[in-house]
């Protein structure tokens, strides 16, 4: 490969520019969130000078972000816990137990993976309305579980397939029932995969717009993402407070990213190498 060294350095320039273009929008938003309204109108680009938390406090308290934050946290926590429980149960059965219909069930889960929410949103909303689940926490939790369960089952199944069948057999010889094997062997051995899948599920649920828009119409039930969008109209003449709201919604995700980046990447790539 002639000139590879040169090509590397030439490529480094646009790549650095792209990295800047990736980071700058967030830096700009943080900076705006720290400014006073007056500063923003006068010069939106200059550094804010000092860290001011007034806008964040305003967005958190007066604009109702606190309420939306709690709504989102509760729904996401319960939904992810359910996803991991149901996903690991089904993943264990589909990978390490033999029973009639298991391959049909696995194919069914796989099919569920390829049905986007947009395609089923009308009948799903109708089912939810008929069963009185619209605008309730259980309704939104159930909608999230249904949306991300095929993905969770699929990844847990492929993870459990990497665990040798001999381990399961040995546990049975030791006198465990199937449930015992699940609780004492598969659940602990599944922890790495459960973490990766759980983080991805949490991100998906936390970031969702369309499902919560449909299932939770009333203002006091808004999730954080819908709440942020509603700030837009409310604070159209107070951009720093709006930017603060955006920041509040992004902070948990940024934290997860900073500490668990490798796990997120593992989850994303699992489908490409195992599928």
């Amino acid at each position, binding site marked *: *490969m*002639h*000139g*590879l060294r040169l*090509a590397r350095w030439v490529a*480094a320039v646009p*790549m*650095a520019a*792209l990295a800047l273009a*990736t*980071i700058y*929008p967030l830096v*700009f*938003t943080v900076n*705006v969130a720290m400014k006073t309204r007056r500063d923003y109108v006068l010069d939106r*680009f200059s550094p804010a000078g000092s860290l001011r938390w007034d806008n964040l406090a305003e967005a958190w308290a007066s604009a109702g972000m606190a309420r939306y934050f709690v709504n989102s946290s509760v729904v996401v926590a319960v939904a992810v816990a359910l996803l991991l429980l149901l996903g690991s149960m*089904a993943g*264990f*059965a589909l990978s390490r*137990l*033999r*029973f009639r219909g*298991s391959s049909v069930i696995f194919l*069914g*889960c796989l099919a569920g993976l390829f*049905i*986007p929410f*947009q*395609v*089923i*949103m009308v009948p799903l909303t109708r*089912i939810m309305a008929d069963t009185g689940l619209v605008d309730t926490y259980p309704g939104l939790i*159930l909608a999230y579980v*249904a949306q991300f369960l*095929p993905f969770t089952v699929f990844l847990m199944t492929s993870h459990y397939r990497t665990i040798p069948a*001999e381990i399961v*057999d040995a546990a*049975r010889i030791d*006198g465990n029932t*199937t449930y015992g*094997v699940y609780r004492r062997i598969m659940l602990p051995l599944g922890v790495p995969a459960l973490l990766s899948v759980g983080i991805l599920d949490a*991100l998906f649920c*936390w*970031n*969702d*717009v*369309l499902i919560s828009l*449909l299932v939770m119409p009333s203002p006091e039930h808004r999730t954080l*993402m819908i709440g942020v969008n509603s700030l*837009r109209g409310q604070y159209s003449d107070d*951009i720093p407070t*709006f*930017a603060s709201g*955006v920041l509040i919604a*992004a902070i948990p995700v940024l934290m997860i990213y900073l500490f668990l980046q490798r796990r997120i*990447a593992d989850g*994303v*790539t699992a489908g*490409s*190498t195992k599928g």
Partner: protein
Amino acid sequence: MPIGSSSPRVRPARSGQADAATMKQRGHRGGVHATARPTSRGARAERLAPYVLVAPAVLIIVGLRLWPLVLGVDFSFTGDGELNGTPVGASNYLELLGDPLFRTSLGNVGLLVLLLPIAVAIPGLLATFIYLRVPGHRVYRSVYFFPAVLSPVIVGAIFNLMLGFDGPVNAVLGAIGAGPVDWLGDPGIAMFTVVGVHVWATFGMALVVFLAGFSTLDASLLDAARVDGASLGRTIWHVIIPSLTRTIQFVFVTTMIGMLTSMFGLLFVMTGGGPEGSTYLPEYYIWHQQGQMNRPALASAASTVLFVVMLVVGLLQISVLRRAGRQD
């Protein structure tokens, strides 16, 4: 050990020697077999255990994903409003065909398909250079991936600020002497702007998938290319692309699905389908017809069309890429 501790469960290791009797009872290989004496309660519980474990997941997936798909297709052949529930044949589909908004949204799908190779090539090229250890490659990997974890609402809100008429992007353009652009207000530009923001937000995902593909790449092939004096372009074309066919295929399909199903948040926050309906996509159309216009049956017809479009595009891509892979 609870009840039902009968011999079938005690099995020899796969490599060990098994006597004929155990072999007969063993049934399928490689899995736990839950057949003990059907009379004992414990054995019955064991036999049912797999079904108990999959039941909640199966109920939810069938009830809230597969069944709604059938229901939706059925629903698309009935009427709205006063005709609610009455079969109307294909009239919803005919109405869709006549609706300029829906036609725009399908046209935009075509645009996305055309832009797809670019959306795949950018992360592919970046991954190549990161794999070749461009100065600073470790930093780039983490920086590029970070927008991928942000919600479309956050991304859209940030870019509403960035792309404002007197926002940073136009300020940069002004500094180099180009006039300000009305990024989200010009019907000829808005769709490209939204797609650009979507690519900004998601190319990190594809990049990470590409890098995982590179890690399976046979390094000796690259060394051979280097010894033979192949240029970088030829190396990419003749060594890297053929070895990564499966990864490229995966990225093509997932990027397409992403473009067709995860731009709602951006449209919702950035354009609301406008200006002049120019940024409509089928998913936005479906939501609009169902939620705002109270036309669920029409929305169902649009859903069915979207599903068919996705199936066709997905299968077409796979077959085209397979053929391309075989030629190499």
